[in-house]
């Protein structure tokens, strides 16, 4: 479907912009989530390995694993700021 800019009403243009913002917000959260996931998978695997050997490392392992989670939180904050 093509949109003829010249004949588009103001409402259509506004709706388009809103749609693009939504896509942008989605990308911000989604891509940041993928980034967190990639980082966490390696750390998580290593952490599980470590605390199978030594159970006391569970707490430290958990912390190390969730550190990259902040990335997706940043993505979320940006997404919120875009939508509002």
């Amino acid at each position, binding site marked *: 479907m093509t949109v003829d800019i010249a004949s588009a009403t103001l409402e259509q243009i506004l709706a388009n912009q809103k749609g693009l913002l939504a896509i942008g917000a989605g990308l911000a959260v989604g891509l940041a989530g993928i980034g967190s996931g990639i980082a966490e998978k390696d750390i998580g695997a290593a952490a599980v390995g470590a605390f199978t050997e030594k159970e006391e490392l*569970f*707490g430290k392992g958990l912390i190390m694993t969730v550190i990259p989670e*902040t990335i997706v*939180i940043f993505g979320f*904050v940006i997404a*919120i700021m875009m939508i509002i």
Partner: protein
Amino acid sequence: MLKPKQMSRVLLVGHKDVLEQTIEVLHSLHGLHIEEYEDDGYFNIGKPLPGAEQDSKDLLKLRSISSFLGIGDPYHRPVDAKQLSSGLKEKLEALDSTVSEKLSRKSDIEANLKDVETKTHDITPFSGIPIDFDLCSGYDSLQVFSGVIKKGTDIETDLKKITSEYQLFVGNTGVILLFVPVRYGDDVSHLLSECEFAEVKIPEISGVPDILLSELESRHDLLTADLGLLSVEIDSIKSQDEEFILSSEELLAIETQKKEAPLFFATSEHAFVIDGWIPDDEFTLMKSRVSEATGDRVHIALREEAADEVAAEDTNIPIEYDNPKIVKPFEAVMNLYARPKYHEIDPTTFVFIAFPLFYGLILGDIGYALILLGISLYGRSKLHGEGWNSLFTVLIYCNISTLFFGILYGEFLGFPLAELHGHPGLIPGWHTVDLFTAMGDELVTFPIHRTHLVSTLLILTILIGVIHINIGLLAGFRNVLKQHGMREAVLEKVSWMVLQLGAFLLLFGMMGVIPSMLPGACVLILAIGMLIAGEGAVAIIELPSILSNTLSYSRLLAVGLSSIGIATAINTMSGMLVESGGLFIIGGVAVFILGHTINTALSVIAPGLHALRLQYVEFFTKFYEGGGRIYDPFGYNRVYTEE
């Protein structure tokens, strides 16, 4: 409350004549954490008291009986220890002989069963062949082939081309038994190999397969019945002697523990020295009890001169939490990370406040709170043991907080309860009350609609983060002050607070709240200077962490919103199905129940982990090191016996 129990190091020195009484008293006090003596050549490591070997043998015997009978259920009715110990030896001998007789019978039956099963396995391929196995071997002029060939092969036609002197039997399972004169052996063997012949070994048993199989089957039934009978007998021993086994195991464990205690002591020819840690408030009691029991023949001294040394060996002092009962369950959360060190602040109380608060702030839903409260109350009454108890108690605290925030947010299983300007609520006629306008023209109402108040809540959560992090920094200030002095404390911890102040001033400058950005920049540079002086140039790399740590608290909003999102999706889907009518109503109800079950499980994991992470990563890194030694006092927690 914010400190672990204060400990003193004590030395007990006495004559060996009173060693036994001393051990007895110390054991019943259950308060002294004994430091193991390492042989330095001057003293010797003590020898166990007489009878230790016999007791540990008996204990071993008892434990093997207990594992054979499969005893493990907690049994709650303590037995009198004295009464138990009087007849223990005889009863144990009797029990041991009964159990070993059962054990040998059981292994006999099991061996027989195994034998029957192997034979059945070997013979089964030959079922349907009416030939005694004795007739299958031992010939000079005949060659015997037994095995399987490719399915559907007509071997007889080809066989007849070689010779007519043969005898062929085919069993029910397709196994063939073929007798041919030796002189045709090679030809037949060649023929068979073309038919993908695979040999099946003839069992070395005499008898006709079918008869043998039916005999084996009846033997198998007999043995199984026997085994069933035996397990009934074992169960009756188990139910009859369970109490005795559990209580005497405990009694013997205590005896062994007492008798082997001298292995930790330093001894000379006539004297013994016990070195250990005791909580300050128990010292006087221990002193008086030991003097009383030994007639003042043991010298007890506090090792106060070692105060400086004590500070140096911080990690060496055993740590016992000193928290009010209500905070205790959170010690499990602490142990998951690390026990505090002796001179550190014990943050259990902080966690007790912040963890349920964050959990509730994230979840905040009346429906889930009630479900999880129900589950955790039920779980706590059914599952015993320290770990379970702590887990469920923590969950109960968390969900009380969730209930509170649920009422504040007016949410029930993802549905808003009150109507908000055109968005219908679950309770008809309840309208939200407008309170005031906050960030970004958002209207704060009661109940709060989180989905319509995102930017305000975002700022609020970050403010919560700032407060939480600064409490951590204050605790860190106290820790460093105590260990390294004022200068380090200011440079390492206050600098971070100054940094935040600078960042805020700069932000206000940018927003125009204050006329210039200069003050902010100056404070910021001062803070960076302090940090570099305190922690070295590496601190520059650490600088952004304060920002990421603070922003990290926005998860208090984010995770909550995602939970609402899932719940709303479930509600919409089931609503659409129910509206379609007919059979779809069942589908709608199923989606509703299944979806909310999954979301309930997620409601434990997601808010729990995120609230925990905020403690561990954002909060603890500001002040907490951990790594203290567990306080393990000499004594025994009696469960099955009483003195």
